[in-house]
């Protein structure tokens, strides 16, 4: 695997650069993953993006901490941001400057790293010349192709061609070529283009569908569109926005016919519109996240209580206060008992596929389904996804045939009060329907696998769990990073395995029990915290492992977007393997920061707002370091 980190400033096309690089690699039959860190387009703000390229599917989701290559779009960043973090002497370094590398003063910054020296390219100048605008990203990629040989310049040019309108594409492609040539001269001959080791096909086996290097949100939107939804309603909230924006384009352009797109005034309204639409026999879809999910809480319980098969994407994000737009599972977990089925996607392929399965499932058991996908980590990551053709989707998902329908020709009343005489039974029935779903989910996944030729969905997914003494349980995209970590630890001789839970509601008690039955210890990695007790998934897992004498650990990780790295996972699992872990552990907690605030609070009553105190503290600390 080759890992690239791209630094630049908003306006330089840093995020696009990563995506283009991924597209170029994809075009050469490789696997690629591109995702933004500081996804800013405002002129001047420092921005980071990442790109991984490999001949095998890429599973890890952590940011690139140890880059094989660094592309630096603006030399003024060198002294403002620690761009060389994690670089070593093998790291290729490409800097956009018209000046000399020597004049940049890098030596000082990289003394300990001792890199083989940086290569410079006047990318902005080349862009100005060929494109007429000082946007250096294409030129940087051309130079990078020459420097690294990771992708050919032709592939870069092709990716540019696919991405931009003709005129812009032409200029960018020319800039890339020029930079390539220039750099090839500088490094005395371009690095030979690497060979793809029998890469994956760009066309699915059955000739249907499309394989694409695509942003997660776009993939999900395409999958949803292929389900022929009839009413889509949405209220914007990051990181859900790209999904519904794509769908609004599909509807407005007429690509998605016989569908109403309703821009509502709140999430409470969004779910309410979906309720009305679903009860009137329309296939209804919406998406939300975080605060939005909370604001529709009352309607969530209502939708499930009424048994309406609405499908909703939750682009998982933290919950405030304090407001935080980054990923964790607090939102979906807060609504785990609202009666909805909850499925968690491991990657964008599964995120897309789960939507087809979700509509099938929802309509068969007459219950709403949430498809949970990690916000930003999945929604904003570009990766290889096979999208269904309309024909395939239609074959898999029959038209919506409602159990109950508001129909003047056959009028029913829906939503009457139920008293003590039947309420227990109504709730039991909901639980029984979840039981039905528990049986159906693997069936639907199997049918999906048979038709589409890939595994998506199901109840749980064990990874090297056989013979594992330690099993780590998690949900969502972190499972990829975990799988890589498991491989490393297994290679080092530690008998560890993993278990992904795809269906969190209904919770597959038996499947979990069976999967972890043989292990001596279970580590549950959770992206949410039940304040005042600790683990949420853990408590559910404990119901499954009742009576077993296992060590159980709860590890809270990734809250509010804190990156979960293989290094931290490795270390944590090793400690777990020695049973040295606390029963409740916060991964990578900054204990000093916390202690200082606890001290402030203990020192006197009027200690001020806690979160703000810590931010101020952190700011102070950071400036003290320097």
């Amino acid at each position: 695997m080759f890992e690239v980190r791209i630094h630049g400033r908003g306006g330089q096309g840093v995020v696009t650069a990563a995506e283009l690089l991924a597209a170029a690699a994809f075009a050469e039959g490789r696997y690629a993953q591109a995702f933004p860190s500081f996804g800013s387009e405002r002129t001047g703000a420092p921005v980071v993006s990442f790109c991984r390229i490999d001949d095998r599917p890429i599973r890890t989701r952590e940011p690139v901490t140890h880059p094989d290559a660094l592309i630096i779009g603006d030399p003024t960043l060198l002294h403002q941001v620690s761009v060389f973090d994690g670089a070593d002497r093998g790291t290729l370094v490409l800097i956009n400057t018209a000046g000399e590398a020597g004049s940049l003063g890098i030596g000082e910054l990289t003394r300990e790293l001792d890199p083989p020296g940086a290569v410079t390219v006047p990318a902005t100048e080349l862009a100005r010349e060929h494109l007429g605008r000082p946007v250096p990203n294409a030129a940087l990629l051309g130079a990078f192709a020459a420097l690294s040989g990771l992708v050919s310049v032709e592939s870069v040019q092709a990716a540019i061609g696919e991405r931009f309108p003709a005129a812009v594409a032409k200029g960018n492609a020319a800039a890339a070529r020029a930079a390539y040539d220039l750099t090839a001269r500088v490094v005395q001959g371009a690095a030979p283009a690497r060979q793809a080791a029998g890469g994956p096909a760009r066309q699915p086996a059955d000739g249907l569908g499309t394989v694409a290097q695509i942003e997660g949100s776009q993939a999900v939107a395409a999958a949803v569109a292929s389900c022929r939804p009839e009413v889509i309603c949405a209220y914007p909230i990051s990181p859900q926005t790209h999904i519904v924006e794509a769908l609004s384009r599909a509807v407005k352009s007429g690509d998605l016919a016989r569908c109403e797109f309703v821009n509502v005034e709140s999430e409470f309204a969004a779910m309410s519109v979906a309720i009305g639409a679903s009860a009137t026999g329309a296939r209804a879809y919406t998406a939300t996240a975080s605060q939005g999910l909370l604001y529709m809480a009352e309607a969530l319980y209502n939708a499930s209580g009424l048994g309406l098969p609405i499908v909703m994407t939750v682009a998982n994000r933290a919950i405030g206060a304090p407001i935080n737009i980054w990923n964790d599972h607090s939102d979906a977990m807060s609504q785990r008992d609202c009666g909805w089925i909850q499925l968690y996607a491991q990657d964008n392929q599964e995120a897309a596929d789960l939507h087809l399965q979700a509509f099938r499932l929802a309509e068969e058991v007459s219950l709403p389904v949430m498809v949970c996908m990690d916000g930003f980590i999945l929604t904003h990551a570009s990766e290889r996804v096979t999208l269904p053709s309309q024909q395939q989707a239609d074959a898999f998902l029959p038209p919506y045939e409602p159990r109950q329908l508001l129909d003047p020709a056959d009028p029913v009343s829906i939503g009457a009060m139920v008293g003590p005489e039947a309420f227990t039974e109504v709730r039991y029935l909901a639980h029984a329907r979840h039981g039905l779903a528990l049986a159906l989910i693997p069936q639907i996944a199997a049918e999906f696998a048979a038709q589409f030729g890939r595994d998506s969905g199901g109840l749980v997914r064990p990874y090297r769990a056989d013979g594992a003494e330690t099993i780590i349980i998690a949900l969502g995209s972190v499972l990829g990073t975990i799988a890589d970590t498991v491989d490393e630890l297994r290679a080092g001789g530690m008998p560890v395995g993993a278990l992904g839970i795809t269906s969190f509601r209904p919770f597959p008690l038996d499947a979990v029990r069976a999967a972890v039955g043989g292990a001596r210890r279970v580590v549950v990695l959770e992206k949410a915290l039940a304040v005042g007790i600790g683990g949420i998934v853990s408590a559910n897992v404990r119901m499954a492992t009742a009576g077993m004498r296992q060590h159980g650990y709860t590890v809270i990780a990734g809250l509010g977007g804190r990156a979960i790295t293989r290094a931290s996972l490795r270390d944590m699992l090793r400690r777990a393997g020695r049973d040295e872990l606390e029963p409740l552990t916060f991964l990578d907690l900054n204990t000093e920061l916390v202690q200082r605030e606890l001290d402030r609070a203990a020192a006197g009553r009027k200690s001020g707002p806690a979160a703000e105190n810590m931010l101020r503290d952190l700011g102070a600390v950071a400036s003290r370091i320097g």
Partner: protein
Amino acid sequence: MTAVPVKFYQTGSFAAGNRLLDPELRSVQSDAARANSLTCGHRACQGCGEALGARYALDAVMRATGRQMIAVNSTGCLEVFSTPYPETSWQIAWIHSLFGNAPAVATGVAAALRAKGQTGVRVVGQGGDGGTVDIGFGCLSGMFERNDDVLFICYDNEAYMNTGVQRSGATPPAARTATTPALGPEPGNVFGQGKNAPLIAMAHEIPYVATATVAGLRDLEAKAERAMTFHGARYLHVLVPCPLGWGTAPGDTIRIARLAEQTGLFPVFEAVGGEVTSVSPIRRKAPVEDYLRLQTRYAHLFKSAQGAEVITRLQAIADRNISRFGLLPDQDGTEAQS
């Protein structure tokens, strides 16, 4: 006759519980003591204005649409008393979701019908004043703004009746409710608060807004029918006296509603595209006192010296309505607009 088992669950809810009779007891509901009830609501209180208003309004819509309609109800008296399972009062497709989301659910119904090409089927949302002007107002305003093809009917009994008569944004000044008790220096609901939902609806510039009362059932029917001749968002605000909450005699419901009109406290009008197009003139103007005296929610006004002053303020409100809407064309020279 079947004896039903004793119900062992507690309610104590002021009004909601009242109407949760067993289906087997429906004969009791319609026994001799109830024969003179004005309402058709299966479990409404005797003399319930809401039951009366809803029946007339919905029947009119049913006629206007040839039964091609779907109704969405917010939580409240109407929802509770109209759905005594197993037999619901509704002969139409009907859904109840939540207290505050009926307008949005109606939007969803309308969107589904549009997506399916069933343009012949029309949508009515309805709720009490609390569900409409308070908790449902965000959704209502959103539905107005999008101009969704929904008629929303508010049955205004000027308080949260279903939970035992608490103040709403439609409760008039001085009225006693459970949360505006007749105590202290300013007994009852305070002056200077409250929202005028029909005027606010007009400010949304939706195609059609109208008010009515159960004292003018023909007028109510005509407006419900007229509303169905428009497409887009429409709003019908119906004053429905509540014997329980207002402390009026069950037989006085229509009389009270008429007095609300004739005092000028409740102007009856129609507005198209945000402009008033017609008003129902007052035939015989009545002083507000005539109206207030019949209602125990205003009883405190007649027990203290200060009460007279309050009545004067209420009269001023009525008079302002009269001149503003031209409710007395002859008296103040302003013609009611056509």
